């Protein structure tokens, strides 16, 4: 079993599609805290949906100057439809080709299922992992851990 990257590890840089004709690199966000939320798939049941929940909490994340990125192995058009349906106001990145390559770098790819784990990372403004959490795949981890980690970052 690969290990989820933990506190103190430099976050591996990556570039992923953030839309049909848009790419985003982690290093572009250097200087700000980044919340990286890996989740198994778009279109999970509505009211317990993790991305919909984070969408509501965006103003609080912004108070820490933090950027939120969702990551799954779904393709850009799937992400676009999902984001539109749920009115998501943060980027969803497509870890689609080569499939799961970024999830693998962070130690959160489920080889047997071909999807990413449900895992959270808070990366500090210097690109170092300040907090990580691997959730049971069926359990939406909520946002309390993320907010605590953001509060713990040096100013």
């Amino acid at each position: 079993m690969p290990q989820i990257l933990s506190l103190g590890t430099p976050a591996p840089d990556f570039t992923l599609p953030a839309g049909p004709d848009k790419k985003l690199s982690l290093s572009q966000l250097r200087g700000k805290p980044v919340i990286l939320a890996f989740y198994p798939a778009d279109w999970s049941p509505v009211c317990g949906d993790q991305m919909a929940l984070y969408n509501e909490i965006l103003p609080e994340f912004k108070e820490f100057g933090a950027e939120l990125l969702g990551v799954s192995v779904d393709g850009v058009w799937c992400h676009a439809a999902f984001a539109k349906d749920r009115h998501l106001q943060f980027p969803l990145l497509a870890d689609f080709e080569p499939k799961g390559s970024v999830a693998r770098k962070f130690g959160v790819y489920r080889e047997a299922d071909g999807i990413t784990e449900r895992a959270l990372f808070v990366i500090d403004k210097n690109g170092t992992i300040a907090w990580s959490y691997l959730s049971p795949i069926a359990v939406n981890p909520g946002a309390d851990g993320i907010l605590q980690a953001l509060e713990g970052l040096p100013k």
Partner: protein
Amino acid sequence: MATLKVPVTAKDHVQGDAAAEITLVEYGDYQCPHCGHAYPIVKQVQKHFGKRLRFVFRDFPLTQIHPDAEAAAETAAFAAAHGRYWKMHDAIFENQSKLSTDYLLKLAKSLKLPVSELRDALETQMYAAAVREDFLGGVRSGVNGTPTFFINGLRHDGPFEFPELVAAIELRGKA
């Protein structure tokens, strides 16, 4: 395990006795179908435990997927200011499929609440801060969707059908 970070206070909407041995807190969204499903179950649970249980409802509107949830929560807060919180709470859940601002105004009228005052309160978002305070307290407590229940301060992670909820309460009530 996730625990309730915001204690129940006089600011809360509470049904039942402060001395009750069981406190059931629900974080809910008036437009969420799962909360609508839980609504009669909570009533049954309250009946089942009687004076042993007090029930607290806090707002957790997911406004981006439920466009009328915020106005509904603010309307309930408005009703609370006029001493009619639970009447409005019940009326909203019992008419969940019809929710709209116009319909909320109609409900207010049927409960003999001042409709034009409610319209102003919604327009000026008079109760938005109170609703957001509930929401953020929920986030801090690990609310991860709606409904989320806390039994004596501990998050209930299982199903919330009547038998499961009763069993979970029995277990925690004794603890």
